[in-house]
């Protein structure tokens, strides 16, 4: 259980760090692949408006999912901490 939670914490941190970086630095992808600098969206060139939208609403969605996932992870950690506290009390009670 502990090992599983530890690995989960590491993966959550890595995945959300990458998602945040992608949302905030999406312009770099357009620079990396210049062929993507074509077309328009809402009248704007895609390589202008998509980084703005991803850096705003995209990041907001990532942050909302992050809040749900990390808060759920905290609940799991609290259950674990409670269990180990209770098992310690039982041992000392004996």
């Amino acid at each position, binding site marked *: 259980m*502990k090992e599983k939670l*530890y690995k989960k*914490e590491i993966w959550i*941190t890595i995945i*959300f*760090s990458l998602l*945040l*970086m992608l*949302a*905030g*630095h999406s*312009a*770099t992808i*357009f*620079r*990396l692949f*210049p062929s993507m*600098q074509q077309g*328009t969206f*809402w*009248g*704007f*060139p895609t*390589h*202008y*408006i998509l*980084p*703005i*939208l991803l*850096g*705003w*609403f995209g*990041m*907001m969605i*990532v*942050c*909302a999912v*992050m*809040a749900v996932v*990390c*808060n759920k992870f*905290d609940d799991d*950690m*609290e259950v*674990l*901490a409670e269990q*180990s*506290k209770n098992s310690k009390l039982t041992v000392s009670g004996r």
Partner: protein
Amino acid sequence: MEYSLGNVWIGLILVIIMFSAFYYVGWYSSRKTTNEADFYAAGFSIGPITNGLGMAATWASLATFLGVIALIQKLQVPFVYLWIQWAISIPLLTLLYGTSLRRMKVFTPASFIRSRYGKPSTVVIVCWMMLIMVMYALGQMIGLGQAFELLFGVPYNTGLIVAGLATVGFIAMGGMYGASYNAAFQMVVMCVAMIVPMGAIMKAMGSSGWWFPPLAYGDMVPAMLEKIPTFFDMKYDIRWYFALIPAFTLGPVALPHLAMRVFTSSSVKSARWAVVWFVLFLGLLFAGTYTAGFAGNFFVATTGNVIAKPDQTILILNLFYNPTLVAAFVMGGALAAGLSTVGGNLMAISGLVGNDLMSIIAPKMQAKQRVRYGYIALISGGVVAILLAFKPPAFLVTSILWAFGLLATTATPAILLGVWWKEANKLALIISSSICGVLFIIISPHVLPSIVVGKGLAAALGMSGGMVTVPLSFAMFIVLSIVFNRMPSLAAYAPTLEDKKVIDRIHGWGDEYEETRYNGITWPLVATVVCMAVFWWGLQPWS
């Protein structure tokens, strides 16, 4: 064209109303401040929406209304990309260490450094953070003085004294409670002042999307491309875009005044939801800024008018298209942006000196007395910033963007590795932070112009320098930690069991200590290799 408000009384009435509101909030908040936690962290009680607004206001400085729009005029779309990525700062900070440190109930990131690395390392980090906070506050103070100069037509020095003292007054009165509630209110003022008048400007310019200025001006793009065909060009090479990460993404992660906003949250979970609101509000304001930058370029290209001081673009657009009262209100929005940032800066200086340094200098001092020193530090920090702003030393008025690279080099590795790696060594921190910090200053064009990595804007803003010193600092810290921890003669600097237990505790494991957690050396060595590759790339000639 230059900005000049025809009617001084409008500006005066606006400023009096705004400052009355700020002082009322400060006075109301002062009644809630009874202990250290209240003064430095608003009693760990701020809810997600208020905190999200406060976070966004603390981040958005005077530059959002003035400098950025000027730089969009100059650099066009690449500067928009630079600005978009600022929004990562607080979410990344919260994910990587904010909630861990909130669990620890620290007041500043340096409080964690003290618990994790001990006193000498704390002094090093506090010195770097103080330098950056003074640079930050100084920039805002200069802006506030200039804003008063523009609003009332008074000499800069007079404007600076009045604006500076009035600002320090309400911040000192309210502590973190006042700074939080005022920042939330200031963010609302900023958003309204940026977005609503911009709608009228866009309508006057002929856009059918005037009803939502941040995103609905696409119909103006063909006319813009006709006048400025290169406006949307990405211009720089891939390294320029990558160089945003070490200096501008990793630097703000360690900004103490941003971290302190996370620490004021009513709970760890509430901090995470505050981040969602932060992105929403900051995105709205920043998108408005990009619109203003676009409109400024469009205005110059289509009307033939020349804006003598591009910093004043948004003000001139409002004077040109909107009534004087609206133009004055926009100036009020710019003032609110400056004030909220100064509030954060001064609270950070107060926490760093009153709590962190005083705990080292006089460890037995009573908490009440430490709060008194916090007040003294806050007022002194404000007064020093005002005095420096009369005739600012050249090295201190360097763009605050440059200072982000310095912070990324000196403080970010200490915090991130301190939270995530038990091997992080105290002496390794002092050496890597000091050497790489000094190196960043040396290779920038601001101190020794003959020794510079990179050129042009990338060098001036610390992007090329950061691409060298940030990875070097991480790599040096990791390698030295591994080496020093295995040298018996340096055992005094190795992390103790208590230091390591701090790491498990702040990650939420309670008293369940496990030596193998956050303790390997394989991944830190892989990170070192990656850092050295980035370091080498940064050293290659810049075009």
